[in-house]
C-alpha cells in the first residue's frame, strides 16, 4: 500500500505495509541511511528523528501514524543548534564507532533548541534515552556544554 509522508521538507511516497516502522521506510524505501537501527523497541535512541520537531523513535513509529506530520532526519538536520552540536562533536572528538551518534546529535540539538544553557541534570534527562555502547557519554556531556557556549558567543 502506498503512503505519502513528508520527509526533510519533501513529500515522498512509500510503498509498504501500514505497520512498517518509519525507520525501515526511511532506510530501505527512501534510501536515507543516516538514521540507524539499534534495538527496534524504543530503548536506545539510535533511530531518533524529529516528528513535527520533537525527537521521536522511528523504530516504533508505523508509517500509517504519520499523517501530515513533518519528519526530519539527521541527513537534513541543520540550523544553529545542529551546527553548534556537530562542531562541538568534532572539537571534542566525541564519536568512537559513531553508530549511535546520529541519534545523539538529534537529541542534543533538540535539547539545545529548547534549553540553551543546560545543566548536567538537564543533559542526563534529555540524553538518557540514547545509548552509546562505546560509552562516549563523558564527552557527550562536555560537548553539549561546549556547544551551548559557542551558541551564546
Amino acid at each position: 500500500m502506498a503512503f505519502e509522508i513528508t520527509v526533510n521538507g519533501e513529500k515522498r511516497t512509500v510503498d509498504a505495509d501500514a505497520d512498517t516502522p518509519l525507520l525501515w521506510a526511511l532506510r530501505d524505501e527512501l534510501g536515507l541511511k543516516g538514521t540507524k537501527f539499534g534495538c527496534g523497541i524504543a530503548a536506545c535512541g539510535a533511530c531518533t528523528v524529529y516528528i513535527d520537531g520533537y525527537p521521536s523513535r522511528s523504530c516504533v513509529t508505523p508509517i500509517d501514524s504519520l499523517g501530515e506530520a513533518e519528519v526530519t532526519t539527521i541527513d537534513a538536520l541543520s540550523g544553529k543548534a545542529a551546527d553548534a552540536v556537530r562542531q562541538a562533536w568534532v572539537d571534542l572528538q566525541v564519536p568512537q564507532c559513531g553508530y549511535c551518534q546520529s541519534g545523539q546529535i538529534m537529541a542534543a540539538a533538540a535539547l539545545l533548541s529548547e534549553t540553551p544553557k543546560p545543566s548536567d541534570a538537564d543533559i542526563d534527562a534529555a540524553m538518557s534515552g540514547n545509548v552509546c555502547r562505546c560509552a562516549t557519554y563523558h564527552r557527550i556531556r562536555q560537548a553539549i556544554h561546549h556547544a551551548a557556549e559557542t551558541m551564546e558567543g
Partner: protein
Amino acid sequence: MRAIFSNPTHTDGSADGTTGGFRPSRRQFLIATGGAGLGLMIGGALPGLGRAEAAAGEAAENLINPFVIIRPDDTVAVLSKHLDMGQGTAHGLTTLVAEELDARWEQMSPEFAPADASKYNNTAFGQVQGTGGSTAIANSFTQYREAGAMARAMLVAAAAEAWGVPAGEVTVDDGTIAHAASGKSAGFGAMAAAAAAMSPPSSVTLKDPSQFRYIGKATTRLDVKPKTEGAPIFALDHAPEGVLVAAIARPPKFGATVRGFDASEAEKINGVVRVLQIPAGIAVVAKSTWPAFKGRDALKIDWDESKAETRGTKELRAEYAALLDQPGKVFQSDGDSEGALAGAARVIEGTFEFPFLAHAPMEPHDVTIHFDGEMAEVWTGSQLQTVDQMVAAGTLGIEAAQVRINTLWAGGSFGRRAIYDSHIVGEAAQLAKAWGTPQPLKIQWSREDDIKGGYYRPAYMHKVRAGLDTEGNIVGWHHRIVGQSIVAGTAFEPGMVHDGIDHTSVEGVAGNSYRIPNFQGELHTVTVGVPPLWWRSVGSTHTAFVMETMLDDLAAAAGRDPVEFRLALLPEGSREAGVLKLAAEKAGWGDPVPEGKARGVAVHKSFGSYVAQVADVTLGEGDAYKVDRIVCAVDCGVAVNPDNIAAQMEGGIGYGLGHAIRNKITLTDGAVDQTNFDTYEPMRIDDMPFVETHIVPSAEAPTGVGEPGTPPAAPAVSNAIFAGRGVRWRTLPFTDNRGGAA
C-alpha cells in the same frame, strides 16, 4: 558455473553440513586449508585479489606499497589492515604514515585494506589478518611508519628524476615536495604515478621521536565529521542494487536443530520472497528488512532439542560451586600454599561469581554477500578477515582466493566480531549457497538475535583463600577458577591452550606482578553448550576483579592503606607501581573523603599496558550508590595519540562499569532469559562518571589501549563501597549482591 548451481532446487543447504555446527574444529580448519596449516596456505593463496591491487590497476590511483595509495588529487589513502570498530585504529595507522611521509593532515584518508593475509596479516597473530588483543598499533607501529617513509623516498626519487636534480636536495614538508635551489615544487599527486613505478628503497631511516609532528599529538580524527552526519559507512548501510534482506530464525536453545517447519504464514507476508532452510536455521528472505523480520516472526518451527544445552544458570552455578571445592588443574605453583595457609595468623576467603555477558555492540550484526558462482564478495565489519574468508570459501566450495572481503567501519565490537568460527559470514555463505543463483543477499540481525545469540563472555566462579602473618604480610594464596575455555575446540586452541590450561581463563591471576609467596592457582575447565567468546579485556574481566578486591580485603585486615599495601607488594620501579602512584596522586588519595562519599583503587596490567584507577563514589540510602569520578592513569608506552588513549580509557571504563552495575545473561533450561535493551539494560549517560585520564610519559614500544581500561573499573568501585560501608560485593553484577549488603 560451479557445481552447486547445477541443482538450483537445492535449497535446504543442510545436507552437506559444511559449517552447520557452532564451532569448526581445528581439524576442519586444517582441511579447509588443504592440511598444510593455517599460515602457509593463506600466505600463498591470495594473490592479486584485493581492492588495493584492483585500485592500483586503475589510472586514477597509485599504490605506492600495500599500505599507501596516492591519488592524483593529492589524497593519501592509508589502507588499514585492521578493522576500526571505534577504537581509532584507522586513525592511528594514518597518523604513522602521515608522520613519516611528511604529509599535510587534511590530505590523509583512512580506508580499509582487502583481506589478504600475505600482506595484511597481524604480525602478532602469525599469518592471520585480524584485529584483537589490543595489538593493532603495537604490531603496526614500525610497519606503517616504514610504509610512510618508503612512500616519501619514492616521491623524492620521482621528483629528483623529473626535475633533473639530486635526490638529496629534494625536501618534503607538509604535503609539498620541493627543490629550493631551482624553486621547483609539486604536490604528492603529481609525482605519484612515477613514484609508484619506482622500485622501493631497500631500507629507510625512520624519524627520531624528537622530530614527530603527528605522533604523540592530538590530531583530529578524520572519521569524526562524517559520523556526525549519519554517513552511510557501516555494513547496515550497504545495499547493492536489488539486494534482498534475510532474517534467520536460529535455535532457541544452543545446539537445537530444525525438525520441521511451516512457512505458510510467513510466505503470505507482503514482501517476503522466499523461505529456506540453511544449517544455521530458517531464513526468511524479503524485499526489505521489515518484511524479513515479520516473516521470521510468523514461522512455525519444530525444534529438536535432543542435542541442545538444557542446563540453566541455576544448574550451572551449582556445578561450578561444587568444583570450587575440588582440586583443579594447576596453572601456577610457587612454594607451599596449603602449608602457608595452615600456619597463617589470619585467612581471608572469598567466593566470586561472574555471569555470562553479551557484547551487544551498537550495530547489530549485518553482512551482505554476492556470490556469482565463481567469486564471492562480502561486505561487513570484518575483524578476522582471514577466518571469514576461509569459512566463506569452505561453505561455498571455492578457494579462499575467490572470496573478496570488503571491511567496512563497524558499529562497535568489543570482541564480538572476532569470531573463531566466523559464524556471521558463514551464515551468509550458507544462504548464498542455498539461494543458488547470483543475487546480493544481506543478513540483518535484530537486537534480540544478538542478545540471545551466544558467543558470550563465559560465566566464571573463583574461590580464593589468602593468609596473613601477624605483621600483616601475605604468606600464602590459594586460587581456584571454574569456567569454560573460550578457544577449546577451535583453530585457536593450539596457540592458546597449553598443558590443558586456556591462558584466557587465568590471565591476570597467572603471572600477576605482586610478590606473593606460596601461590597456587588451579583451573577447572567445564564444557557447556553455550558458545563463549572473548569480551573486551578477556580473562581480565574477572581476574582483575578477584585479585584487586582480595588485595583490598587483605590490606584492610592488615590495617594498611590500600595503595601503600600494593606498592609494597609490587617490584620496585615496576610500571604497575608507576600508574598506581600517578592515579593516587591525581585523585588526591590520602585526602580526607567527605561524609557520604567513598574512594577505592585498583591496578591491573593487560595486553602489555598498565592501568590504575581511583573511583570516587557517593553512597546513598540502603545499597544505593553513584560513581562520581574515575581518575585513570595509563602506561601504554609511546602515546601515539594521547586524546584517543583518553577516549579508549573513558570507553573502557564505561564498558566495564556498565556491566558491573547491572548486566548479566542468564539461562532457564538452556534458553536465554534476556532479549533486548529492556532486559539487558545498557549503561546510560546518567550512570557515567566523570573520567580523568593521565598518561605516563614513556619511550617504550606502544602497547594496546582498547581493552586495558576495562579491568580496573569494577574492582575500584567495589573497593570504594567496601571502604565506605565495610560491605564486600564479590558477585557481578553488583545488583546481585543486594539484600545481603548494608
